[in-house]
């Protein structure tokens, strides 16, 4: 890739920032650049990355999804509770159930977005409040402790596909979470690149009316996007559960800002039609670095939200300034095209 093209892509800037930031952390704290820390980062950020794939799909179709985190927690909490009550100790069961819940809730989102043509932000704001309120009221508010957790979930969380020895004889490894993430990334890539539905997502994000006239089934595409995002959220819910070995119905909710920030940083435009999976993953890496490694450079966690805000503002500013200069500042951008 030549240099000029490299600097035209917003992903490149994210990559540069990641490299600079990593170098900065390494200088202050050399413990950062070890394989162990890298594996640890991959393990803890795989869940966010999976959520980000769903948010990314919604974003390139021209919408915003703030309900993904709620769907994840509903999938996780409901399925782990049902699992304990039914006495079924199988990782396949909990994944299947959680993904199914995600698909159903995603389909409800799709009904409002596609059939009633409501603005996606308002729909997902409404449904996230609806789902979370309904779960807390009708299903329960008690957290599930590690003692009550089924064995299969616990052993899944510590399962490594690659194990390496430390100097003192103990071992560390690459978690299975990362393998799931990679598998989902590959599937999503193929769907986006080589299927009619996938091309349709870009098409309706670029221009809904044009996509319709070109023969895309926009309703089917919308249903695919939101059910797939729901499915991913369901998977993420279980991964999060086996990562922290604790299920609190108020966890995950409220982190959607970080996920959306990650996707937008990766260059996906909220007006739809543009964005790449590579960019999204780079965005997730940057946000994870900011979230998890502020302590390593000696800043307290209170700075987290502040830095995410700053990075998000800078990131979107660069993306949109580029767009503005590309068309010579002719377009009048003051209205959000949803």
């Amino acid at each position: 890739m030549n240099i000029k093209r490299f600097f035209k892509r917003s992903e490149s800037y994210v990559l540069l920032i990641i490299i600079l930031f990593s170098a900065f952390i390494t200088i202050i704290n050399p413990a950062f650049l070890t394989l162990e820390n890298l594996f640890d980062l991959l393990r803890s950020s795989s869940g966010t990355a999976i959520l980000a794939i769903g948010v990314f799909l919604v974003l390139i179709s021209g919408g915003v999804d703030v309900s993904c985190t709620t769907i994840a927690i509903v999938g996780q909490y409901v399925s782990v509770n049902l699992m304990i009550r039914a006495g079924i100790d199988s990782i396949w069961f909990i994944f299947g159930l959680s993904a199914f819940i995600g698909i159903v809730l995603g389909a409800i989102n799709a009904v409002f977005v596609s059939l009633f043509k409501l603005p996606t932000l308002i729909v997902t704001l409404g449904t996230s409040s609806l789902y979370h309120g309904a779960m807390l009221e009708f299903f329960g508010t008690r957290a599930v402790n590690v003692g009550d957790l089924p064995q299969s979930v616990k052993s899944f969380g510590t399962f490594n596909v690659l194990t390496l020895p430390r100097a003192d004889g103990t071992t560390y490894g690459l978690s299975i979470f990362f393998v799931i993430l990679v598998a989902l990334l590959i599937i999503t890539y193929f769907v986006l690149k080589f299927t009619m539905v996938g091309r349709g997502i870009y098409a309706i994000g670029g221009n809904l009316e044009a996509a319709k006239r070109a023969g895309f089934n926009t309703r089917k595409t919308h249903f695919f996007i939101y059910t797939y995002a729901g499915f991913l959220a369901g998977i993420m819910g279980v991964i999060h559960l086996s990562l922290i070995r604790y299920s609190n119905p108020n966890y995950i909710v409220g982190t959607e800002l970080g996920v959306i920030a990650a996707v937008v940083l990766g260059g996906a435009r909220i007006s739809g039609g543009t964005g790449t999976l590579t960019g999204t993953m780079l965005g997730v890496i940057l946000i994870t670095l900011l979230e998890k490694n502020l302590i390593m450079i000696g800043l307290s966690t209170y700075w987290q939200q502040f830095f995410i805000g700053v990075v998000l503002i800078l990131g979107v500013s660069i993306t949109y300034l580029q767009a503005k200069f590309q068309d010579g500042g002719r377009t009048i951008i003051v209205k959000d095209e949803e």
Partner: protein
Amino acid sequence: MKIPFFKFKEPKNKYLFIIMMLTILIMLVMLPDIFLSQVNIRSMASQFPEFGFLALAMMLAMITGGIDLSVVATANFTGVIAALILTKGPEAGMSPILAIVLAIASVIALAIPCGLINGILIAFVGVPPILATLGTQGLFLGLATVITKGLSIANFPNQFLFIGSGYLFGVPFVFILFLIGTIVVALILGRTQQGFSMYMIGSNPTVARYSGVNNSKIIIKTYVITAILAAVSSIIMISRANSMRPGYGSSYLLQAILVVVLGGADPDGGFGNIPGLLMAIVMLQVTQSGLNILAFSPFVRKFIWGFALLLVMTINFTAQQYGDYKRVKKMRQIATTTT
């Protein structure tokens, strides 16, 4: 052309009025003794202004076709600063009145740069309002958290508490504040060039630009007004609670959007009026108090707000579709009779 000062004849307001009356009627039937008691009326009148101001702010942003997700964060940030002045000032020997004046002045003064950041990002950089305000939400809330380290600040001078819980001629002071705020916003919308241009930009920014409206200036002003309204809300919040903690009032964001949409504003811009908003606020407050008295859990309320938001939007959409269908049918009729 002038936009009517008090657009009661807005078509949607007719239905809204009926729904509002129905809500009140249901509450009257379910709680015949308590609902109309002086205590309940007073408590309702002092509860809604803090999110009423946020709703006013949200409506202004929506009229221009934007949205302001940073209102609660702005209120949090300015509120933290005010709380610091109100607690540290008297400790350092400052007279309470001076501290109060200083706190209120600094809240308003801080709100202006907050609004400017939003406005500049949207108008000059060209970032969509959702993203710009999502980013500043993180920024302002982050600042508030950094300043307080996540802890709450409490115990303000007694005189300051009058704003939140005092009565003037038997009427809660916050209610009077809200009335003044509403009149000011109504005047801006209906009697100034700023207001008229805001409706124009919301309906069609390109047309507005070619009609000689300075879009960027109007947008920036809108978000500054929005931030100031959020700051007023923060003063009420901290005065009512007698404490401040970052994250306080985060549920107001959804409620503000709900009320504004319920009140007839269009998220695509160009619509939104004060009477509709007021009726929606009354409706929300009546339901809120009713559910409170009937001892429903906060989760049910969360569920109901989400449900109500979706229901209202769906009804609006269906009504609009039906209207379009009728109009097309009528036009076809005219076409067939004339040919």
